[in-house]
């Protein structure tokens, strides 16, 4: 199956189709198990967050999805079809922006399309359409070193989105930014998601970020095992202004901390 955007699609954005499903994924390195029996479902247009203590295998899980690593057991399905090989329904956004210093902004944004076989001019035109909604107008001819961290992260997100893959995989998307820029970009992401409803699976160690952006939050346990404590975040909770002061947010965050304490086996964990 080919998932990448093909030339000639006219819409500026596209709507999510198909559910992502992980069934019983397991991965060990040598004899050390890192992931065990990880199952998860992300419906079309849903945002799911996975939080976990460091060392819980968050990035290993992403590597299984992107195909950088192969699972020892279990399988990944998209729209009912097993996901294998090099062509995958995911667009991956790494933690660092990983912009290529020798490519201008427009060519950095369009590189996913070039990899998918688009001609450079076509790829540029396609990425160009997204510059304005991403607040990047006028930067196309610049080099990454000329942009601020927040803008670079937006280019990185544009590069992810423009590939029009059904599911976005975000690895601590705003982890490398300062708190103020992070807040600004979270609001911006919520806003642009509202208009486009991509399916998103993202990984973070920032619990309040997880609650703010996701429909459902899971915890990846330190001791390899199934995902813990599904926490559902209602879309009724305001995610922009009023998020911090919403009465439900505090208890959701508290709930997640309790699950985290439970799975990290530190002091204060349940017996």
């Amino acid at each position, binding site marked *: 199956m080919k998932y990448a955007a093909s030339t000639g699609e006219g819409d500026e954005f596209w709507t999510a189709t198909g559910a992502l499903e992980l069934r019983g994924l397991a991965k060990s390195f040598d004899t050390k198990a890192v992931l065990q029996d990880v199952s998860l479902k992300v419906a079309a247009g849903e945002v799911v967050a996975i939080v976990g203590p460091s060392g819980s295998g968050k990035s290993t899980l992403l590597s299984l999805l992107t*195909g950088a690593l192969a699972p020892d057991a279990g399988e990944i399905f998209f729209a009912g079809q097993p996901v294998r090989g*090099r062509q995958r329904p995911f*667009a*991956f956004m790494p933690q660092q922006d*990983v912009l290529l*210093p*020798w490519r201008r902004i427009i060519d950095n944004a369009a590189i996913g399309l070039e*990899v998918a076989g688009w001609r450079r001019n076509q790829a540029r035109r396609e990425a160009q359409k997204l510059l304005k909604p991403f607040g990047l107008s006028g930067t196309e001819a610049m080099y990454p*070193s*000329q942009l601020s961290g927040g803008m670079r992260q937006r280019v990185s997100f544009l590069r992810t989105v423009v590939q029009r893959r059904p599911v976005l995989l975000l690895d601590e998307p705003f982890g490398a930014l300062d708190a103020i820029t992070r807040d600004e970009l979270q609001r911006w992401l919520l806003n642009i998601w509202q208009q486009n409803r991509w399916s998103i699976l993202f990984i973070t160690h920032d619990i309040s970020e997880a609650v703010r952006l996701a429909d459902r939050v899971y915890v990846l346990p330190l001791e390899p095992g199934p995902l813990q404590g599904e926490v559902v975040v209602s879309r009724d909770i305001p995610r922009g202004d009023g998020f911090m002061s919403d009465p439900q947010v505090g208890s959701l965050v508290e709930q997640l901390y309790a699950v985290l304490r439970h799975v990290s086996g530190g002091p204060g964990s349940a017996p």
Partner: protein
Amino acid sequence: MRMGRAIAAPLLAFLVLLALWQVVAMAQLVPPDMLPAPTRVVSAATAERDSLLRHTAPTVLATLVGFALSVTVAFLTATVLDFSRALRRAILPLLIVSQTLPLIALAPLVVLWFGFGLLPKILLVAFVTFFPMVVGFMRGFESADPQAQQLLASMGASRTVVFRLIRLPAATASFFSALRISITYAVVGAIFAEYAGAVAGLGVYMQSAKNVFRTDLVLAAVAVSTILTLALYSIVVAIERFCAPWLRIAAGDQQ
């Protein structure tokens, strides 16, 4: 502006040394046959400019052709080695050992095998510049950001596409710094080959001037070879600025 300031200080130091030399020579502290004054070197060079130029041309040709050959073969070698770990293991040690071969012993051999024409000079220039170029390319390929390569792989890119879009452009900075180092070796390599035996060239000219005790003409030829090297070096820098504008921007940002 920055460039101007960078050049001003060494230029001044050079002029001071030149003036000192002029004073020493004019005071006859050293016999003029041993150390002719800079002014005498210049006037000798002007008087002999036709034959100097006639001997410069083959050296330039050997340098350029040898260098082009070296860059091409180095690029192909480094690319093949980048794709094959087995070949890298087998060939890289041989390349390193090849650097221990003394040029002074190699030059006469190459002349013996390939005659007094252009070919041995080209080969020798290629030989002295090849290793730094290969290493420059390989270092450059390896300097590519692993995260960027993983990102491209996650997009479904093959090893070849990752090479073309990440590893090759990542090598630009390293390639040009190797190029700048090699171009200075290249002229020396050509002159050395001419020393070992040739019909024309700056090396030949220096030898024949030395044989008739024309120190001024030897120094004139040395000056020409230095100017030649500097000119080639500037051309490389100009090409680098044109081909890799982002390197300049990154450097500018640090200031």
